């Protein structure tokens, strides 16, 4: 009997397609995992907990929201005292 396994790729093109698919999937998974596991993730889902007011906010050191980043940059450069 010369039956092929149903999961085995039938042609060279399908083999290459399978390889590309799983390579892309691995890349996507790695990028997603790296982004989700960032330090900023300590803040629950990076949702603002202080109505957009960064000064005096406890979560500021770990916050990666755009407004917090702007605030940190502004305080570092001295444009905000």
């Amino acid at each position, binding site marked *: 009997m010369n039956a092929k396994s149903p999961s085995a790729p039938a042609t060279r093109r399908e083999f290459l397609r399978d390889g590309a*698919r799983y390579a892309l*999937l691995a890349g996507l998974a790695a990028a997603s995992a790296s*982004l989700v596991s960032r330090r900023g*993730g300590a*803040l629950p*889902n990076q949702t603002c907990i202080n109505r957009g007011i960064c000064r005096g906010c406890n979560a500021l050191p770990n916050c*990666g929201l755009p407004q917090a980043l702007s605030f940190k940059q502004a305080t570092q450069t001295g444009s905000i005292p």
Partner: protein
Amino acid sequence: MVSTLCLFALGGESPAEQRFPPPDFTETGHQLPVTTTPPPRALWVHYLDVAVLAGALALALWLIYKKRSRRGLFWLSIFSVAWFGFWKKGCVCAIGAPQNVAYALFHPEYAVPLTVVAFFALPLIVALFAGRAFCAAVCPHGALQDLVLVKPVKVPAWLEHALGVLPFVFLGFGLSFAATGSGFPVCRYDPIVPIFRLNGPSLMVALGVLTLLLGLWVGRPYCRFACPYGALLRLAALVSRWRVRVTPDSCTQCRLCENACPFGAMREPSPGVASPPFVRGDRRRLAALLGLLPVLVAAGALIGHRLGPAVAKLDPTVALAERFLQQQQSPVDHGLMTPEALSLQRAERDPKGLLQAAAEMRGRFVLACALFGGWVGLVLGVKLVSLSVHVRRADFEPDRGACFACARCFRSCPQELVRLGLMPAAEAPRPASEPQAVNA
């Protein structure tokens, strides 16, 4: 009609947003009210968004592959427009999410919310296995355009090929500018989101209405000729494990499915085996185009690098620095407190910091433009190569990348009608390999 309603609905709010600077009330002593910000959404709402996205994707897959139901996809489209579009105001949006991801990959201090990562990754994972199910009825942008399509017209193949490059160009534009921190242009120039928000810059509102008007005749114009996330999904769908098939069993090559597809995604069977002289000519052309590819990339990167400083002037910081230097060289008293005069006043407080920030931003723009130019060269080169590669097809079948899995073609196939019991088997055309019955 929908577009006209949108235009009327948007008319009242759009101009109000752009009123700047605020009126001066120093004489009357009127206090301007403090701007309030809406309270943040609860964490469970974010998880609900991800769960709804996953559920909608699963439902779309079931409707496309198992039920093969256009009607089901129609109702799912209405739900997506209502939920992800008008209720969620088009945010979080999978189309803009790649920019957040690109920015985060190059800026370790930036943390992307879990919802953004999910909206970026889930449709792509589905596309890697089952094609563009997200575009079919889950994406609110695509669903809205699909719903307004009333009288589809065919776009000529040459125009389809030429315009089909634009989503990849827009993708490169968005990613290179986001990665270098120069801006998020995909969100800024999204024409559909202002429709969902019933608010937005006048230009984008007008573009959105025009897109929907065009969409009455041209199927999904934004998805086909502009959507950068669609370009990513198209690439992923090219290697998908399963794909949409028009006929449940055998193709009779009746061409009915070709006419049923409003998006020009149906591909006809390839003509027989080409003769050796034609094959040799094709191979020589392919080799020449492959050799041209790196040249196009290098030329694009060089042109982008040269254009970088000019493009950088679009950035507010760089533009302010330029105005500041101009003011230093030839001082002009504006007198009135115009926005320009106010910004120059702010610039005079810390000129060193402003010039440093402007120089940094200009450098980022130059890098982004060089990357973008190289990407455009790559896209054009790959498009030329793809046009000279022949794919063998035995039957009519949807193009893996171009098919939105909208399910319109299913009911056009006589074999499908026979399967559903809507047509007697004797009336259906026979497969091309079998002799057709002749009426006496």
